[in-house]
């Protein structure tokens, strides 16, 4: 039962599943002591964490700006209180005032109960960084929940979803455990579909040596978001690119980023660099994946074990660039339905994709309506950081977490006639919103941005 003292919790990974990603659980009686030990080593490394621990004045501004709190009204889901779950331990063990005055300054002894609190609330945080964006000081709660999740992982507490997804990456090079023959079969199938749907004959080269461009799709595109994969294929064929998809890292995401930056994230990064080296490519282009793009753009430089010789850009950067140069022939009337854009948090608050997404969507659709707030002020879809748990309790919570997004979409009026398009160019957003637009009865279909580009291209 994923509940502990009334707190919802994701289903946990089994010891076997953890073992596949090289973690052996710490026995329960040693967990509290070990947690403090791990916390001590981490606080000496990350200034972003220390500042979040030591700077908050509890002004309360983050409360109404967190979709998790808005959806659940659980006080511990206020970002200031969420960080307080770890700050109370930090104070107790690592500050003079906490050691001397204890409760008065909100310090608390570590215990298994506290760790269970961490597990519940750090996995309700989407790490969307809206709180950092609105905080008068810029305190980044995301840095705190990253570290909370990292410590829990070392103790042997991780969600089954995250652990098995990371295990899939280790086993096959992608989150969905697609082996190479499956990848090729799916892409051949999609190439046939493209002929039927778009009347274009395109190829999806896999592991093609001496390619110029390495395209990294999200593995979810091989299962649920086929139009995104087709859109990317259409785009690269349209511009006559010498491109390829690597079978060893067919994955734009990096779940390690979300709960195990020390090992899982780093090893995924190095897997990518190996593939780039072996295929002799000149540039890496990233597919639609929010957390994965942040992990790639902002973290590869500091996680790589070698100099990174290849520039890395997002497919939106490249499409927007060609649109600005007027090199793509586009018919926006092909996407005539009313469409709104859900800004993936990692794109707009961590990767600066704001303008490029709008350049594209304005060019490829004919009835684009902004939701409010949008851009860097946007709210998360409620699934951010991979909290896509589908056990009944956590699924209910996901509906609550997406409430704010549902209100925003409804306010645009795009779903009135039941033919609206909610463009959400990120695999986690898509996976969260596919069921959520049904739960909230929004009358919209969820699509990626590249999907719309693929459809709008004029071939002759």
């Amino acid at each position, binding site marked *: 039962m994923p509940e502990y003292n009334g707190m919802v919790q994701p289903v946990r990974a089994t010891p076997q599943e953890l073992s596949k990603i090289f973690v052996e659980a710490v026995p329960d009686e040693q967990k509290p002591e070990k947690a403090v030990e791990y916390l001590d080593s981490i606080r000496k*490394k990350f*200034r*972003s*964490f*220390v*500042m979040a621990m*030591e*700077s908050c*004045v*509890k*002004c*309360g*501004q983050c*409360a*109404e700006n967190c979709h998790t709190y808005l959806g659940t009204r659980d*006080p511990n889901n*206020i970002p*200031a209180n969420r960080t*307080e779950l770890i700050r109370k331990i930090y104070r107790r063990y690592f500050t003079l005032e906490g050691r001397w005055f204890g*409760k*008065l300054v*909100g310090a608390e002894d570590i215990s298994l109960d506290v760790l269970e609190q961490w597990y519940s609330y750090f996995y309700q945080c989407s790490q969307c960084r809206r709180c*950092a964006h*609105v*905080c*008068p*000081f*810029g305190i*980044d709660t*995301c*840095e705190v929940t990253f570290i909370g999740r990292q410590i829990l992982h070392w103790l042997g507490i991780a969600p089954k979803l995250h652990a098995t997804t990371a295990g899939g990456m280790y086993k096959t090079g992608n989150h969905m455990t697609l082996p190479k023959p499956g990848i090729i079969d799916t892409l051949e199938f999609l190439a046939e579909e493209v002929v039927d749907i778009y*009347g*274009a*004959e395109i190829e999806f080269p896999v592991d093609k040596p001496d390619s*110029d*461009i390495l395209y990294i799709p999200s593995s979810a595109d091989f299962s649920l978001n086929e139009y995104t994969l087709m859109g990317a294929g259409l785009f690269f*064929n*349209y511009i*006559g*690119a*010498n491109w390829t998809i690597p079978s060893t890292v067919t994955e734009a995401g990096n779940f390690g980023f979300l709960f195990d930056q020390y090992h899982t994230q780093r090893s995924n990064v190095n897997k990518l660099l190996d593939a780039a080296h072996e295929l002799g490519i*000149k*540039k890496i282009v990233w597919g639609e994946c929010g957390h994965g793009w942040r992990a790639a753009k*902002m*973290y590869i*430089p*500091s*996680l790589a074990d070698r100099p990174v010789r290849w*520039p890395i*850009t997002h497919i939106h*950067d490249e499409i*927007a660039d*060609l649109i600005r140069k007027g090199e*793509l022939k586009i018919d926006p009337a092909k996407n005539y339905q009313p469409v709104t854009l859900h800004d993936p948090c990692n794109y707009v*608050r*961590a990767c*600066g994709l*704001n303008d490029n997404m709008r350049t594209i969507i304005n060019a490829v659709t004919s009835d684009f309506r902004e939701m409010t707030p949008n*851009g*860097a002020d946007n709210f998360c879809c409620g699934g951010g950081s991979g909290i896509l748990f589908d056990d009944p309790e956590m699924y209910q919570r996901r509906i609550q977490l997406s409430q704010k997004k549902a209100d925003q979409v409804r306010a645009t009026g795009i779903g009135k006639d039941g033919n609206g398009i909610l463009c959400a160019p990120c695999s986690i957003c898509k996976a969260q919103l596919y069921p959520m637009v049904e739960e909230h009865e929004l009358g919209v279909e969820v699509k990626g941005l590249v999907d719309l580009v693929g459809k709008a291209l004029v071939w002759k």
Partner: protein
Amino acid sequence: MSLIIGQILPYITITLFTLGVLYRLGRWVGPRIVHNITLSPWMKTNTAVTIRVAEEAFLFRNLFRFDKVLWLGAILMHFSLLNVLGGHVVGFGTLGKQFAFIPGLGITEDLSEQMSNLLGSVFGLLLLLTLLFLLYRRLTLPKVKLVSSISDNLWLVFLILLVGVGDLMRFFEFAATNVDYKAVQDYLVALALFKPVTDMPLLSNYFFLTHFLLVQILLIVFPFSKLMHIFGMFAERWIINRVYKDPAPGLPNVDVAAARLAGIGVPSGDAAEEGV
């Protein structure tokens, strides 16, 4: 009493305050900025970053954007505080004649003293009122109540007491016996020169002693409290607001015009089909 608070404690206070602040800042310098976590849309020049951080630090930009009421309370409180602190320095430093030193304005020393008094009164009162407002907000607004701990409220109460006693001396004759600019200046000079001060009439005023004691407690606890956010603010901004330059877009060996001319992707039988 006057010996402890007025003569001995100040030296201890200054030492603890300085060492404490250095200790706390030292704790922040050790850990590094490991990954680039700058917030986007990012700024392209250091000037832009400086302007943004200054807006946040001095105009409370984010509070203004997302909570106007808190913004008004917070900025008035901090602005008054800044003036009150500045007023203490120049007021006691120049005996209220600070404005007469500004060349070209023709302000007499008398007028300057009157202005100094007026400004002191206005900001002293405003500071007290805004602190009361912030306390009221903490005690009544549900979302703020939910994040406040005991110490958050205690700090406000403490500051209200400290400012309150100061205001008493400013506004009420009975509290201001033996307290004037000159007396305080003499006292501070004597302290700085390590001269005995216990005989000074100033130290027989219990309002002054209380005010002075509270200030010293504040300074001693300051490095171990949330008041360090004055420095924390800049340290945090230094992490999340930095210059970032995107790698240039543009794909290697791509010639869209040539590809379209060659008809890549267009099925060969298409032209015939179209005629049907």
